[in-house]
């Protein structure tokens, strides 16, 4: 039941050790820097330090209530992250798989559209374009409107 914002790498296996004890289903999502066919050297991730931790804590607690999670974790990095590096992870633990999957997808939809992070591409010629928000990501949260805990499963 925790969120962390950090520059350092993290290890999914280490994060999962002891995670979700007693649960029947654990889902993890990891986001990685794609090299886009060799064009991208790294991403530079900026965030809003005063807001990020509070926002992640609030997202996680909201998801825990909505999907009856027994455990959750969010880790999001900032700074310069090379191609292939992990950017972030979420993990969710619940009694059954539908709630664990739904909660992880819900958290990802939140993170993509409501968490104060911004990505810029670093190419061979230096800092490049800021990554634009995808219309699908901005709208992805709409599908959760009116849903709370999903009893199917």
């Amino acid at each position: 039941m925790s969120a962390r914002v950090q520059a350092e790498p993290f290890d999914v296996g280490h994060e999962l050790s002891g995670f979700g004890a007693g649960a029947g289903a654990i889902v993890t999502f990891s986001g990685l820097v794609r090299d886009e066919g060799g064009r991208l050297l790294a991403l530079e991730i900026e965030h809003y330090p005063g807001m990020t931790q509070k926002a992640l804590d609030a997202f996680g607690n909201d998801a825990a209530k909505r999907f009856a999670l027994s455990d959750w974790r969010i880790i999001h990095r900032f700074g310069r992250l090379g191609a292939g590096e992990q950017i972030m992870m979420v993990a969710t633990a619940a009694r059954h798989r539908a709630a664990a999957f739904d909660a992880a997808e819900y958290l990802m939809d939140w993170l993509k559209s409501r968490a104060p992070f911004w990505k810029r591409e670093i190419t061979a010629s230096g800092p490049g374009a800021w990554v634009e928000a995808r219309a699908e990501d901005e709208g992805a949260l709409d599908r959760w409107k009116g849903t709370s805990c999903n009893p199917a499963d």
Partner: protein
Amino acid sequence: MVVDVLYFAWLRERVGQARERVETEAVTVRDLVAELAARDEWHAAALSDLTAVRVAVDQELADLDAPLAGAREIAFFPPMTGG
């Protein structure tokens, strides 16, 4: 009143600074945007297309019509691209 105004990502670059302290009588975020845009061409350029600007008031997401009464920190930034 006095508020801290923060800028992130390309808004920070266009304004040319990450943070400034502003004396304002603005009632809503939208009023504050108008005051800031009138300061100079850099602010005007950064705040010219409000469909591309998101706002947080005291570190909570807010919309342009949110009241500023009592606020201490207003942040402007592009649509978020976390995850």
